[in-house]
């Protein structure tokens, strides 16, 4: 500790004082789920805390996400995000949302930073709206094949059925084999995980409260892979409105957005197993696993999976780089040391929370360990 303090006073303090944020200029409302997984820290890189994605920052640009749902309505916070779509509902030629659910999910993934109301996890992704009747699994099957044909990176499915429908499994397995990451809701009936989330080729997501407790209606089981915010989630809703919703449906887009941020980043060589120089679905899935916050300290389990999805840690380049200078050095270590012991109850939390790398709401030895482990690493 003495060495750390000495290091901080002699080397980092003069630099850090220059960059310590002096203003708190909030322009976008940060939904609690986006804040909890610290997605804003990935793209709000100028320390102003206005929750606007900075130019050049990773906000999911170039990543294509299909949302298989009730369609996506026109909405000012989704302007320019939907690039294509299809409808499988009889009598509905287009993917305009006449229910609201799909628009809500889309907003959590991609509501834009237009200085108006709220913002999503990855505000620069491209959305593909696939309108289905969620009680008709053949629609979902057709939507998956359509999305694969469009070359999407991610398919987001905030729906589920207690019945295993083999054509749905075939479609999911096919999409996964084509490099698509499929993410689905575990279900809301306090039962075993629903389909398609239960398939091995699909990432199953359960829901948590803002205090990280499990939402008790969230379906559970060994197939559950991640937990994410799902209670009282505020997002876009037609017509030009906002609404709070609860369910594993709303946990899914937090994982989808986080995965999109990883897909949009430069590949981490330590994850690029096939050395093709880009993120593949398996590699993104591994990164999500390795960076999740284990909420009950038991490793993977049937109630939280690997834990709370962590947008911040999964998108640091290299891991432990808190100040976006593409290296893990004495400045990163000093920031963690400076805010050591800080929790959300402390007034300096909002300036120091980037040092909470594992997002467990306390800046502690675990965060120092991450920085130490990667100390000296430079983004290649």
């Amino acid at each position: 500790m003495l060495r750390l303090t000495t290091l901080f006073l002699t080397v980092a303090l003069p630099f850090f004082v220059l960059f310590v944020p002096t203003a708190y200029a909030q322009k976008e409302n940060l939904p609690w789920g986006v804040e909890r997984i610290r997605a804003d820290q990935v793209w709000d890189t100028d320390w102003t805390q206005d929750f606007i994605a900075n130019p050049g920052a990773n906000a999911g640009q170039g990543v294509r996400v299909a949302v298989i749902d009730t369609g996506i309505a026109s909405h000012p916070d989704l302007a320019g995000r939907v690039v294509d779509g299809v409808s499988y509902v009889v009598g509905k030629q287009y993917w305009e949302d006449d229910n609201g659910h799909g628009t809500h999910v889309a907003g959590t993934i991609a509501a834009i930073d237009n200085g108006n109301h709220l913002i999503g996890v990855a505000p620069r992704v491209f959305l593909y709206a696939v309108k289905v009747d969620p009680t008709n699994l053949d629609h979902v099957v057709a939507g998956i094949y359509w999305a694969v044909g469009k070359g999407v990176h991610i398919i987001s499915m905030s729906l589920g059925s207690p019945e295993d429908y083999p054509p749905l499994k075939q479609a999911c397995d096919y999409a996964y084999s084509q490099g698509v990451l499929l993410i689905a809701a575990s279900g809301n009936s306090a039962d075993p995980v629903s389909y398609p989330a239960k398939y091995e080729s699909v990432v199953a997501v359960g829901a948590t409260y803002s205090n990280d407790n499990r939402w008790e209606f969230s379906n559970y089981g060994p197939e559950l892979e991640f937990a994410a915010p799902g209670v009282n989630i505020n997002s876009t809703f037609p017509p030009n409105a906002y609404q709070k919703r609860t369910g594993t449906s709303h946990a899914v887009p937090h994982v989808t957005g986080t995965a999109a941020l990883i897909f949009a980043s430069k590949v981490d060589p330590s994850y690029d197993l096939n050395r093709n120089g880009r993120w593949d679905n398996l590699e993104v899935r591994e990164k999500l696993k390795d960076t999740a916050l284990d909420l009950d300290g038991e490793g993977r389990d049937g109630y939280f999976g690997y834990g709370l999805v962590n947008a911040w840690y999964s998108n640091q380049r290299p891991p432990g780089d808190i100040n976006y200078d593409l290296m893990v050095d004495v400045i990163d270590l000093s920031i963690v040391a400076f805010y050591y012991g800080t929790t959300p109850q402390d007034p300096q939390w909002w300036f120091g929370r980037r040092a909470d790398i594992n997002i467990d709401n306390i800046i502690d030895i675990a965060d120092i360990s991450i920085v130490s482990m990667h100390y000296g690493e430079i983004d290649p």
Partner: protein
Amino acid sequence: MAGTFDARVLRHWKVLGLVLIAVLALASGVYAYWRINAPRSPTLYVTATSPPLELRMELDKAEFGLNETIAIHLFLRNIGERAIKIYFPYINTGGVGFIVEYANGTEVFNFPRGGLASVDEVTLELGGQISKTLNWSQIGRRLVGDVIVGTYSVPSGTYYIIGRTEPYLIDVDIATATPPWTPLIQTPPIAITIS
């Protein structure tokens, strides 16, 4: 005298005829009124009550041709003394559905199963109701465990249709409520024949 007699007989026949016509007209009117206003056959509607909710299922008829689409009318009504908020685990058909069974209780079809994984919140005013018409196109599902191994058009025979709700909760804060969901409400079956 004979002429007087004939006239009296004729008048009697006329009166008799008029009375007959009046009786026939009245009988027709009564019959028509009964056809229009009589309650439906008790076999074509059933109800189940779990206060403050009442689920009613109605069918238009009890005999259907093969491959004929069967309309199932479902009404979930607030019979309590105040407005209520009902929560269902999924967004699908508004919280109501149906089951089709063979006489031995084996399930032929159950709809809906799952849906959008967002809690559905419905406000029912005093006396208010959810009304849905769901169609069964005489398709059966073969299940092995939870796997749908096939679907088929059902053969002629007798089937039993049961109305049901989804599991639900009433007047809770869904953000702080805890499981389980209240078990679903099921109506008694209505027997139908398909031939």
